């Protein structure tokens, strides 16, 4: 397909088909996606997806940045749950460097990641509701995303692109206000989520719009590389948190919700149930933190963990390490490592090849949105245009993660 040339060249005036450009900037797509659709009335006959509108060459940039400068790039992948991306990257480097993380740091990270998962699922589920016509639920639950951002702000100072944590731990401990805000969130959010569910779960209009729409079989989902809530909605109980536990997820007691038919309603229910499970995990993490020694927020690895300014000015070793880390001169083994975390949309993988230089030799992001989205045009065939819009919302495609 050449630029400036129409995708569909069938200009037969007798033809009943209409070509429609859905996007690149269409309010219903919630992001920069272009789909050129051929319509027969309201029904989609075929479609072509064009992506790459916000491609920012992160993999190329990453080859020219030391490890600690790559964290801000990962923020901008799935910007609805950037802490998960940040932590995934830190854990990849920690795996490369064989750093053992203290349990308390693991639990603090779990809290942050589960808050991020909740905020990611809030966005997706409220937008499904919005696109089926339920504006109330959208505005009602969306305020809790704001509360989660306030917690991030307390922990790291940023809200959306968080750059949270450091290689080797977190950059600072949670303060009392952060814990107070988390406790307040845990008290208020379940009430709102229950109300959200009671507005939608048995809502006739919502069920008519979503149940039985865009059904996907397990075989198709696996063949197209689906992961995350989309795959679980088809009934495959694959979750990286359980199959390859990282950050001490094996210490927690939680369930993996699965659907049966893989339709939009199942995806919605799976995401909702995951929010309940995330609340459960955060509660357990807070409980576990009580028995951990206070004040530990990073591993004891001075050669990799950036020291505090107080130490840098008063301690020669700290100054040396500070200099070496900032210049990217850490002794990392020449090796390759793949690490996956369960992101908001599925398996977020980091494939890192280190050749002993200051920067990665190669870094590849396995981006769930990119891989999940490849099926969209194909599965839209034969679907109503309005159903395809909800289908896209329920796939929770984030343009930043799609294009990297």
């Amino acid at each position, binding site marked *: 397909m050449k630029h400036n040339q129409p995708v569909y060249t069938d200009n037969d005036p007798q033809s009943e088909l209409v070509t429609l450009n859905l996007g690149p900037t269409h309010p219903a797509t919630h992001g920069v996606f272009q789909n050129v659709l051929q319509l027969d009335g309201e029904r989609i006959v075929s479609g072509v997806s064009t992506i790459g509108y916000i491609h920012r060459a992160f993999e190329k940039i990453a080859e020219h940045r030391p490890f600690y400068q790559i964290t801000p790039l990962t923020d901008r992948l799935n910007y609805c749950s950037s802490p998960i991306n940040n932590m995934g990257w830190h854990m990849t480097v920690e795996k490369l460097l064989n750093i053992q993380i203290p349990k308390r740091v693991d639990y603090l990270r779990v809290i942050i990641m589960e808050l991020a998962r909740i905020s990611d699922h809030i966005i997706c589920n409220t937008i499904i509701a919005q696109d089926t016509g339920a504006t109330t639920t959208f505005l009602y639950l969306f305020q809790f995303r704001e509360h989660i951002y306030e917690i991030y702000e307390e922990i790291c100072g940023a809200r959306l692109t968080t750059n949270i944590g450091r290689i080797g731990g977190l950059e600072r401990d949670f303060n009392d206000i952060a814990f107070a805000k988390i406790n307040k969130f845990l008290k208020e959010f379940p009430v709102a989520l229950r109300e959200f569910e009671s507005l939608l779960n048995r809502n006739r209009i919502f069920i008519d719009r979503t149940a039985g729409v865009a059904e996907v079989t397990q075989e198709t989902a696996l063949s197209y*590389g689906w992961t995350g809530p989309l795959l679980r909605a088809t009934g495959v109980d694959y979750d990286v948190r359980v*199959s390859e536990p990282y950050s001490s997820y094996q210490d927690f007691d939680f369930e993996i919700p699965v659907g049966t038919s893989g339709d939009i309603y199942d995806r919605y229910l799976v995401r909702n149930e995951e929010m309940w499970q995330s609340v459960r995990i955060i509660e357990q993490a807070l409980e576990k933190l009580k028995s951990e020694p206070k004040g530990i927020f990073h591993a004891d690895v001075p050669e990799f963990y950036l020291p505090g300014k107080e130490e840098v000015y008063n301690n020669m070793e700290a100054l040396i390490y500070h200099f070496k880390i900032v210049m990217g001169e850490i002794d990392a083994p020449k*090796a*390759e490592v*793949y690490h*996956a975390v369960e992101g908001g949309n599925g398996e977020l993988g980091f494939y890192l*090849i280190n050749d002993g230089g200051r920067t990665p030799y190669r870094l590849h992001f*396995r981006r769930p949105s990119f891989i999940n989205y*490849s099926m969209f045009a194909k599965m839209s065939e034969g679907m109503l245009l309005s159903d395809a819009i909800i289908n896209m919302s329920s796939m929770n495609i984030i343009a930043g993660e799609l294009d990297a």
Partner: protein
Amino acid sequence: MAKATNTEIINLLGEKFGEQLFDVTEPYGLLTFSTTKDKIVNVLSFLKENGKINFNFLTDLTAVHYPEKNQIAVVYHLHSMVNGIRVRLKVFLHENDATIPTASTLWNSANWMERETYDFFGVKFEGHPDLRRILNMDELNVHPMLKQYPLEDPNRVDKKDEYFGR
């Protein structure tokens, strides 16, 4: 049924393919090996269809450029969800002849991942149904992830690497 281990997988593959699999390593517990481009589809479909190891899922497909060896490595990450185990498979191609049979006949997910690899590395996947650029614009005449292309426009005077300690 007991879950398959790395040793069992490599024994099973060794029986079937023998010398065509080489460079077997296990960095960080992830079984890694190389094969040739003539055998890659056979190896992939064996891994996918063998009931005992059952690597049903193509996690990732990408490439790495090694300019000093004039090589491009195509890297496959496969996952056996039943056994909870991953393998990494590499095929080294010569820069000037970067063609390899497509894996999109085995997994639909390979379609876009191969398009991405083609877009950034210029690896041509033979038999791919729709091999064209995916993230970059169609008019681009280079494959930008190859190591010879610098990050910044080299003609710019305000963004020299030495000003940034790089």
